[in-house]
C-alpha cells in the first residue's frame, strides 16, 4: 500500500471523529461560559474526576462496558447495511434473561456453570429480540429502523409487566437478588477500585470486541456480511443470500446488545431493575458512529462516552452535569453531519490530484 493511500485512509478514518470532538469542545466551552465558569478549569476537573483517580476510572470502565456491547451491536448491523436502533430493548431483555437464570439456578451452583449459562441466556434473549426485525426485513420488507424502535417499547412493556406482576421485590421495581452467576468486582483484585461498579464483565465485553473483529474480518461469514453491507448487488452476484445475512446480522447484533445486560445484573447489583440501561442502547449508535464501525474503534469510543458521562458527575458542583447530555447529542450530530461532508471534501481533493 502506498503512503498516499494510507494517509488518505487514515484521514478518512480519523478526521470526522476529530472534527466532532473539536465541535463538542467548542460547544462545551459555550455551555461552561454560560454558567460563568472557566472552561479550562472545568475540563481539568472532568479529567481529574475520571481518569485521575481509581474510583473515577473504575466508574468509567463500568459505564464503558455496557456501551462497548451496544456499540458493537450497532456496528455489526451497520456493517451489514442495517440500522439496529433496538439496543434499548435488546439490552433490557439480555439483562432480564441473565437475572432469570441467576434466580432459577439453586444457591451454590458452581460459578463455572452458572456464569456461562447466564451469559448465554442474555445473548440468546437479545438475539431473539434482534432476530424478529431481521426476519421482518428479509421476508416482509419492513424497514428495520421502525420495527426496532417499536420493538423497544414492546419489549420494555413486556418486561415491565413481568416485573410488576410477578417478580418484583415489594416497593421496588427490581427482582430479588440472584442466587448464582454473580461476577466479581474489579476491586476484589485491585483494591484501589474500591467502591466503583467496575466488574469482570468488562472482560466479556472486550472479548466480544475481539470476537467481532475476528468474525468481521477473518471469517467467511464476516466476508459475506460486509459484502452485503457494502454492495448488496455484488454480494448477490457472489452467490451470497442477502436475506439470510440480514437475519443473522440482526440476530448477532441483538445478542451483543443483550450481552451488555450482564454488566449491571451479574456484575453490579445482582438483580434486574427496570430502566437499568436506559439510554445505553441509543448511545450505542453514537459509539458505533464515532468508532467508525470498527470493533476496536468502538472500545475507544465507548471509553470516550463513558468518560463524558462519568465526568458530568465530577463537575456537577460547578456546571450542571446535564452538560454532558448536551455534548453527547452535539457529538453525534457533528459526526453524522461531518462524515458525508468530510468524505466529499477528501474525495473532491483526491479527484483534483488525479486530474492534475
Amino acid at each position, binding site marked *: 500500500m502506498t503512503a498516499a493511500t494510507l494517509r488518505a485512509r487514515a484521514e478518512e478514518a480519523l478526521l470526522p471523529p476529530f472534527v466532532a470532538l473539536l465541535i463538542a469542545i467548542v460547544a462545551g466551552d459555550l455551555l461552561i461560559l454560560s454558567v460563568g465558569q472557566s472552561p479550562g478549569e472545568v475540563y481539568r476537573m472532568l479529567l481529574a474526576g475520571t481518569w485521575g483517580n481509581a474510583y473515577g476510572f473504575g466508574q468509567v470502565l463500568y459505564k464503558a462496558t455496557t456501551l462497548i456491547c451496544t456499540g458493537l451491536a450497532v456496528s455489526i448491523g451497520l456493517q451489514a447495511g442495517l440500522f439496529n436502533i433496538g439496543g434499548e430493548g435488546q439490552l433490557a431483555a439480555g439483562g432480564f434473561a441473565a437475572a432469570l437464570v441467576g434466580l432459577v439456578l439453586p444457591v451454590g451452583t458452581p460459578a463455572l456453570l452458572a456464569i456461562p449459562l447466564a451469559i448465554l441466556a442474555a445473548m440468546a434473549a437479545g438475539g431473539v429480540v434482534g432476530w424478529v426485525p431481521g426476519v421482518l426485513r428479509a421476508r416482509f420488507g419492513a424497514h428495520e429502523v421502525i420495527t426496532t424502535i417499536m420493538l423497544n417499547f414492546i419489549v420494555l412493556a413486556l418486561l415491565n409487566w413481568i416485573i410488576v406482576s410477578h417478580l418484583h421485590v415489594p416497593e421496588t421495581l427490581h427482582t430479588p437478588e440472584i442466587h448464582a452467576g454473580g461476577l466479581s468486582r474489579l476491586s476484589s483484585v485491585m483494591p484501589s477500585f474500591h467502591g466503583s461498579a467496575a466488574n469482570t464483565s468488562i472482560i466479556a465485553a472486550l472479548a466480544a470486541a475481539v470476537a467481532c473483529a475476528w468474525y468481521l474480518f477473518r471469517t467467511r461469514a464476516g466476508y459475506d456480511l*460486509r459484502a452485503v453491507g457494502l454492495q448488496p448487488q455484488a454480494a448477490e452476484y457472489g452467490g451470497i443470500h442477502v436475506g439470510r445475512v440480514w437475519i443473522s446480522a440482526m440476530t448477532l447484533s441483538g445478542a451483543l446488545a443483550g450481552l451488555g445486560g450482564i454488566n449491571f445484573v451479574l456484575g453490579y447489583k445482582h438483580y434486574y431493575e427496570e430502566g437499568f440501561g436506559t439510554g445505553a442502547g441509543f448511545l450505542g449508535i453514537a459509539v458505533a458512529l464515532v468508532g467508525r464501525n470498527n470493533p476496536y474503534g468502538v472500545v475507544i469510543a465507548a471509553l470516550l462516552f463513558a468518560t463524558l458521562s462519568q465526568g458530568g458527575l465530577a463537575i456537577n458542583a460547578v456546571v450542571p452535569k446535564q452538560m454532558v447530555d448536551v455534548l453527547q447529542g452535539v457529538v453525534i450530530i457533528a459526526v453524522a453531519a461531518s462524515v458525508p461532508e468530510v468524505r466529499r471534501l477528501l474525495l473532491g481533493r483526491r479527484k483534483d490530484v488525479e486530474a492534475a
Partner: protein
Amino acid sequence: MHHIEKRFGATRADRDANLEVAAGEVHALVGENGAGKSTLMHILAGLFPPDAGQVVVDGRDVTGWTTAEAIAAGVGMVHQHFMLVPTLTIAENVVLGREPVRGVRLDMARANREVREVGERYGLAVDPRRIVKDLSVGEAQRVEILKTLFRGARILILDEPTAVLSPPEVRELWRVLRRLRESGGTIILITHKLDEVMDVSDRITVMRHGETVARMATRDTTPAEIARAMVGREVTLVGTRDGEGGGRRKEGGPSSLAVRGLTVSTPTRPHAVNDVSFAVAPGQILGIAGVEGNGQTELIEAIAGLRRPAAGTIALVGTDGASHDVTTWSVRERARAGLAHIPEDRHRRGLVLEYSVSDNLILGMQERFTRGLSLDRTRIAANARAKIEAFDIRPADPSLPARALSGGNQQKIVIAREMGGEFSVLLAAQPTRGVDVGAIEFIHARLRDARDDGKAILLVSAELAEVLALSDRIAVMYAGRVIRILSRDEANEELIGELMTGAKGSAGDVLLEDTAEGTIANPVITP
C-alpha cells in the same frame, strides 16, 4: 449548441458536440448509447451547465441557464425515464411548479380544465383526474408531453420516446409530433432506431463518443449510411479473427449452453427478454450484438441466476461433463457446476470496491478458501499472488482496495477470478468496457484462448467491432428478441448495424430453432 463539453468525474460524456436545429423542424439526434446525446440535451434543458461551449436559443446566448429559465424560454424535455410522480393525478403532475390558485388554494377545477384544453388542442386526450401510476406507458408519455406544452414549450426534446411504446402508441406519438410541428413547434428526437428516424425526421445529427460526426437531411440519406456513421470504426479493435474458423468445435457435439424460449419480465418491461432461444457449443463464441437496453442485461442475469425467468429453460454442461437443467438453480449452484460470469457492471456487481484485490479474487468462491469458520488467509494470499502474476494485474499489491486500481486492472481482477479456475461456460458481458487499449488486447486474447481450450462463451458487447472480431456466430438482439443469428461469414458491420437499429428485419421475426451448429429454421412471420 457549439463545441459542448461535459465531464462527469473521470468520464467525458461530451467532448465536442455541436447541434443546430432550425425552427419548425423535427430533428433526429442519433447515436449509440453513451454517445452523449442525453447529456447534450440535459444541458439544453438547463439541468446542468456545460464545462465548455456555448448554447444559443433563438439567437440568445443562454449557456448555463437553469431549468426554470429553459422552461420560461419554451424549452421542454420529455425524459427517457419518466419524470412523473406516480401517486399524483395527471393534472397535478402537469401543473406542478406553476399551479393555478384561488386565494391560497390550489384551484384543481381550473387545473383539470386547463390540462384537458391543452390536451385537446394537440390531440392528446387524457382524463386529468386519473392517477399516474394507473396509466399505461403510452399514456404516461402523453402526460410528459402535456407537461411541456402546458408550459408553452416551442422546442420539445424527446429522449428515446419509443423505447417503451407499442407500435400503435408509436404511430399515435408521430401523429402528435406532426401536429406540433404544423403549429410551429420544433422537435428534437433522441433515438437509435433508424426506421423512426426515416419516418418522422427532417434532419439528422449523428453523435459518437461525445462528438458530432455527421449531419444530414433525411431525404438525402439512407439507413445504411446513418448506421455506418453511428457505429463507426474502432481502428484499434478490428483485429482479424484467427484463421482456424471457430476453434475446435466438435461437429454434432452437444451444446454447452442451451437457452430455450427464455422470457424475462422486469417491473417496467414485461418482455425485457422475449422468447429467446440459442445454443453455444464447446469451443465457440456466440456474440450478441445490439444497442444496449434491448434485453441483453436481463438475458445474462437470467442465465447467471440473478433473475428469475418468467418462462423458458436454461441448460448447461458442467465441468463434470454432465448436462444440467439449471433454470431453478441458485447463483452459487450454477457457479459450482462450471458457469463463469464477467458481469457488465464491475462497479456494481463484479467487485466489492472497498475489498482488497485478494478478497475480490475469491468473491463467489469464498467457500473454497476456508479453514473451519475462518478464511484461509494463506491460501487467499497464494491465490492472489498466482492470479496477479498470471493476469498481470497492476499494481501487483493484493492488499490495495479494488477501488484504487484503474478500470483495466479492475476488470483483470474479475477476469482472473472468473477465468482463472475451472469452468465450462463463460458469460462475458461488456468485457472490455472502460478499459485501456492494452487491457482490451489482453482480454481478447484470453477469450480466444478459452474458446480454443473448448469453453463455450456467450459474449455481449455494445462495441460491434468487438463482437465481429471475436465471435464465431453472432446473434442480433432488438427489443428483447433475438431477431437473427448469423454465421461469421454472413455477418458484416452494415448488416448488423441495420438489424440492431431495427432498420431491417421487423420485431415480428420469430426464430424457431437454433442449435450450436447454426440456424436450422428462421422463417419470417409477418404480423
